[in-house]
Structures are given as C-alpha cells and as structure tokens.
C-alpha cells in the first residue's frame, strides 16, 4: 500500500516536470518560428514618441564598473533634454559616489543620490524606491551598475509605451565577460535560453513576460499606482512583474534592446546570487500564487503560465525529491513504467536554472543567435543543475522556516563586480581621469 502511494507521488512529480519540459518545447518552437519568419528590426520605430525618461542606477560599492555605465549614459542617442539619470549611491564605502559625482558635475542630467549608512544597504528595492522619489520622467528605466546598454536602447525600449496597455518593458541581457572562464560561459548559456527563447516566446504567445529587474522599466503612473518595489522580497523584479499583470497591464519584451552584463565569475559568487534569486522567487510564489489564481484580469493561459513561472525555482528541489523517491522504488518494487518516468528526471537534469530551460531550449537559442563554440558546453549544464539543487533546497527550507516562525530574515548578499568585463568593450575611451 505504502509503495503504491510512493509510486503515485513519484508519478505526480515527474508528470509535473514533464509539463515544464513540454512548456519549454513550445517556447523553443515558437522562438524558432519567430526567427524564421521575421528578422528583428534594428531601426527604432515611432521616433515621434519621445517621452521624458528617468534612469535609475542603484550602486553599492561598484567603483570598478560604475564609470562604464555612466560613460555609456553620456553616449546615449536619446535627447538629453528629456533624460534624467539618477545614480543611487547606496551607502558605498568605496569610490562609487566620488566617480558618480564627477560625472554629475560635467553632465547636468546626471544626479547622485547619496544614502548614508542608516538608510542605505537594505537591498536593491529600497534603493530604487529612494531614487523613484526624485524621478521626474514619464518613463522610469532601471539599469544595474555593472551593465553596459546599447547607445540607442532608450528609443528601442520607450517606443513600446505608445501602447497604453503596456505597463512595463524588458530588454535583452547578454553576458559581456563570456570568454572569461567556464562559469561565465555557462551563465551566458543560461542567459541565451532565458532571453533569446524563453522571454521572446512568452511575449509572442501572450503569456507572462518577466521583468528582469534591469534593462527595462515602467510607465511612471503604473509604478506609482503599484507603490513602487516591495522591499520585503529578495526578487523584487519577479514580484513587481506579477503586480503589473494583476493590475491589468502587460510587460513587453524588446529583443533588440540589448544590454551587456558582467556575469558572476566564480562558483562562490554564483551560489550567493542564485541563492538570493531562488529565495526571492520562492517568496514571490508564496505571495502571489493565490492572487494569480483568483485574478479576474488574467486569462486562464496566463494563470497557468504565471503559476509555472512562480514554481521555477522549486524544480531543482523536486528533482532531488524525485531522486530520493525514485531510487528506493527501483530497489523495492520495479514497475514497468518507472524507467519511462525516470527518463523525464534525466532530461530535466540537463536544464538551465533560472527559467528551467531544458538543453534543447538553450541549444536552439544559440542556434538562432548563430553561436557555435558555446553550444559545445551544453552537456555541462547538468553540473550547473546539480549545483543548483543544494542552493534551491537551502533557499526552500529557509523560506519555509521564515514562514513557520513568522520572521522575515532577508539579507541582501550583493554580487561583487570585478570590472573584468571592461576589456571586452571596444573603443574603450576614458573621458575622466581619476
């Protein structure tokens, strides 16, 4: 009786995983079809629509990378009289504030908001909310300090706001320091799967497009009506994504608005970053699952996709659970259908965590992008997935513990950036001498 029950649980878990694999196959085929039918237009449309734009750049101890993003802000092709750049120096203890202040002296559209020890260091959401108070633009965009956007990215992003249903936009994140080492190459693979296929497919299928926390932004009135970012959730980007959709707006993904990020360079940094993402995402799942189910503004297909999106970081935990359950079942009782279900567990191990993109989604993403060398690393995705199992399991138990004891113990473990990505930018001209 017990074994039959365990078999039923095992079957349920693997069928759930199979649902994800199917979902991502649909995404893969959709992105592939899109790429075959249309070539992305790199010419900005609707140039007659030029709203005022505020750009928020939260920065905490980013002296090695802040100059890169600020220099790029000065090179943007968007009308400077309609641009406001706010650097939020979040209680930095290094030269971040000093570098930003130097830019602020030369360029009148760049301002620095200094947060002291008492107010700062409470995480990105808190810094963004502080910056938001000073933003005057009709559109509010966010960029992380380690990012380097395209020069015409603002035109590409804001043109989507012409549609009043669009409450937010999201551009594409591309890894800048990909050739640096194996970790950065594997992160690049994850990003390709996540943005080239996943986000694009979700956008064109009319599902939940995710705001990634950077390289994107909001219509100011929408952001104000939502009350800004939630400071109690570590994944403030996913959290606000759901609030935008629950308020009846859409998020538009703009594939040709590319921004280059400095990916984590070591397994230790990878652990810290993914733990924060996993924990934050799980917090969102607890907060929004019921809201998504009850919402009258979401279509059924959006509700299903929204719930699957909220459950992404539970998948490595479920993979571990299926191992714990499946192996004794192999030993104790051997049913004919267990090997077939086991195949699903095996396939799901070759997935990129973050969007649970199976290897075929990542591979097709590299194919669409025309990348050959990075494809050869795909078998190694199994190791990143295995590495993510303890990360997500720890995050799961920590979230569960905080739910049980009622204490919200959020610690924002900031990702350190080395500035090694600078060497991959061509025409590296320093305009300020430090």
């Amino acid at each position, binding site marked *: 009786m017990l074994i039959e029950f365990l078999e039923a649980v095992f079957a349920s878990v693997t069928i759930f995983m199979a649902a994800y694999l199917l979902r991502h196959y649909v995404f893969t*085929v959709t992105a592939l079809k899109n790429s075959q039918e249309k070539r992305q237009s790199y010419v900005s449309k609707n140039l007659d629509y030029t709203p005022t734009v505020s750009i928020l750049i939260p920065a905490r101890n980013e002296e090695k990378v802040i100059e890169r993003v600020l220099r790029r802000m000065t090179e943007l092709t968007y009308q400077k009289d309609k641009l406001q750049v706010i650097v939020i120096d979040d209680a930095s203890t290094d030269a971040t504030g000093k570098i930003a202040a130097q830019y602020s002296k030369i360029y009148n559209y760049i301002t620095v908001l200094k947060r002291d020890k008492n107010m700062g260091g409470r995480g990105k959401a808190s810094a963004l909310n502080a910056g938001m108070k000073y933003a005057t633009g009709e559109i509010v965009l966010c960029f992380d300090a380690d990012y380097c956007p395209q020069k015409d990215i603002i035109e590409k992003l804001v043109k989507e706001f012409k549609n009043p249903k669009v409450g937010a936009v999201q551009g594409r994140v591309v890894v800048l320091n990909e050739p640096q080492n194996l970790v950065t190459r594997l992160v690049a693979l994850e990003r390709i799967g996540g943005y080239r296929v996943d986000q694009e497919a979700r956008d064109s299928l009319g599902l939940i497009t995710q705001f990634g926390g950077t390289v994107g932004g909001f219509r100011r009135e929408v952001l104000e009506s939502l009350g800004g970012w939630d400071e109690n959730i570590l994944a403030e980007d996913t959290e606000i994504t759901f609030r935008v959709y629950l308020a009846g707006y859409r998020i538009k993904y703009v594939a040709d608005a590319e921004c280059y990020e400095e990916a984590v360079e070591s397994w230790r940094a990878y652990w810290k970053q993914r733990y924060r993402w996993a924990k934050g995402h799980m917090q969102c799942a607890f907060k929004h699952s019921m809201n998504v189910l009850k919402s009258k503004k979401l279509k059924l297909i959006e509700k299903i996709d929204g719930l699957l999106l909220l459950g992404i970081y539970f998948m490595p935990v479920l993979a571990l659970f299926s191992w714990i359950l499946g192996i004794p079942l192999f030993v104790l009782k051997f049913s004919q259908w267990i090997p077939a279900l086991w195949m699903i567990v095996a396939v799901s191990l070759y997935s990129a965590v973050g969007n649970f993109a199976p290897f075929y989604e990542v591979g097709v993403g590299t194919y669409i992008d025309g990348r050959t060398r990075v494809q050869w690393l795909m078998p190694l995705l199994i190791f990143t997935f295995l590495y993510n199992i303890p990360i997500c399991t720890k995050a799961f138990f920590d979230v569960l513990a905080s739910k049980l004891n009622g204490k919200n113990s959020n610690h924002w473990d900031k990702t350190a950036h080395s500035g090694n990505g600078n060497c991959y930018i061509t025409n590296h001209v320093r305009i300020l001498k430090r």
Partner: protein
Amino acid sequence: MRESIHMLFGFALGALLCITFYYSLHFNEEILQALVVFNLFFVLALFPLNGSLQRKVVAMIFGNGTCFLWNTIFYQFACCAAEQTNGTFSIVYLILGPILNLFWVVSFWSLSLTFLLNSRNRGAAKIAD
C-alpha cells in the same frame, strides 16, 4: 512548411533506421528503446531548424550508429557487472543509464547544431557574395 516536411521525413527515416537495425542486427529490446527515444528526440529538436535536409539526415544516421554502439557496449558491461555483483549493478544500470545516455545525446546534438549552423552560415556568406 519546409521544416514540417523535414520533420515528417525525419520521423519516417527514424522508423526505418530502427526497423533496419533491429531486424538485421537482432539486438535486445533495451537498445531498441534507446534508439526510438534518440530518434524521437533528434527529429523533434533538430529537424525543425533551418538547414539542409542532407546534413540533418547525415547527423541522424551517425547518431543512430553511435546510439547502437554506446548502448551495446554499456549493456554488455552492465550484464557482466550484474553477474559479478549478484544483480546489484542492474539497479545502478537502470538509474544511471538514462542520465549517461543523455550525456552523449546532448553532446552529439550540440555538435549536430554546429554542423547545421556552419552550413547555414556558409549559405548566408554565398548570398552575400
């Protein structure tokens, strides 16, 4: 449309290869299962891509050969190991078999992508010329 025809052709070819291998080499059903799974996956994940049918077919035939060899050797090894360990290894074989099988399948598929992409890039270069 062109890719859908490629997929239909791929399914037909996969079925033909499985039947040919099975009846000419008389191997066991486990290897046949591996071949069926490989062909199903390969057709679903490679044939919808933009590229020449010839290259896809060549990759698929090579893949079937690799699948047959890998699974035959692994199965023989598992049989010997199971006999030595009083059947314990057969459990290990069942658990690790699909994961190890996928390791070469993913590698082979990624190489096939490169093989296909190179032809696409060469085609694009010709048009540019």
